[in-house]
């Protein structure tokens, strides 16, 4: 029994640490949260120049089924935790604010 437990331990060590599963062909929704936050920041940066809220919402839709404003709000929380520059946080805040009242145009993305 002791050897079985030892074997399980070694199997877990190998499968989780030494040779963990390598993921391919994933979706943006599976990205680590800090990568998702950076993606949201990119959307905010582009929105600042383009001014296209529908496009911003469409870009955010790949991160999940939540309302785009909620996605940005989650990004803002993490951005604050990991000390994004104030100006970047302001960009996120502005996008979140705009999305609060956003109504999808016909044929646009549905949150």
């Amino acid at each position, binding site marked *: 029994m002791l050897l*079985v437990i030892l*074997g*399980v331990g070694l199997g877990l060590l190998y499968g989780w*640490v030494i040779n963990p599963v390598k993921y391919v062909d994933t979706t943006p929704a599976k990205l680590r949260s800090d990568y998702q936050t950076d993606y949201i*920041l990119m959307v905010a940066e*582009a929105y600042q120049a383009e001014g296209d809220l529908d496009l911003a919402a469409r870009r955010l839709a790949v991160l999940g089924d939540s309302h785009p404003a909620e996605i940005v709000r989650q990004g803002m929380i993490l*951005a604050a935790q990991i000390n994004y*520059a104030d100006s970047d946080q302001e960009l996120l805040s502005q996008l979140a604010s705009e999305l609060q009242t956003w109504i999808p145009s016909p044929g646009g993305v549905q949150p």
Partner: protein
Amino acid sequence: MRDERGHWYLLTGFAIGIILGLVYAWLIAPQGHQDTSPASLQSEFKDQYRAMIASAFVATGNLPRAEARLALLGDSDVARVLAEQAQRTLGGGKSPLEAQALGLLAVALGQGDSAAIPSPVPSLTPTHNQNTANPAQSTTDPAPSEMTPVETANAAAVSPSLSPTNPDPQETNLILSTATPLPTRTPSVTPGSPFVLQTNTFVCDVDLPNPLIQVIAEDSSGAPLPGQAVIITWDSGDDFFFTGLKPEIGLGYADFLMDPGVLYQVRMADGGQSVPDITPAECETESGSRYWGSWQLVFSRP
């Protein structure tokens, strides 16, 4: 009986334990299945991620940040991948602005300096730079693949990001079109004097067997201009594309494949001089064999 079995049953138990451990670690509860990196994205999502990076780059002009983000995708030749995606985007009839952004980023990376980097959108309010650093410092940033979440945040703060601007999109776009030399957000509002045709040359090159319209855009000093929209019209249609999507040939270069027997009209999208009656013509080698020649049009700003 017991003596014949020896100690092998112990090894069997150990092997079963390892198998159980691996099954759990690889199949039942694999590590980090919700915490992947951009390098693991499906190719279509990688394209979308690249396009997002390019759009953000065009908006901010922050090349170090764009480089750090692109590194996360793990592409071996980033500029080439961007240029190819730009051409795919144009060929697939997707957003020309997206293609332009990809092309501009490819050119900026290929140049390695700020010549092709678009100016950031001017802010309408005083900027807040207190938590930002000189873009040059980005060269000392850790490799993005080694970034921890905190390091990622630092990379995101590499250079001054823009302060919030007036939320009115129309006002933002107006500023973009009048104060930003590169790039324009629409092909028809390129700032500066309209392009003027400098040369219109028929080129016979056996290495270019297809009939091409080759367009080269230059500034007044002869320096190549990437990201310039070229409009081609003919009886049954029209098309437009951007210079700089083939940086391996030239930063101000773009080309278009002609159909034999069709008359084309070429002009830069800023409303400058139009060149009519461009049509494929044949060249002849010394041995008498024929092949298609190309038209090379050089446009420059006066």
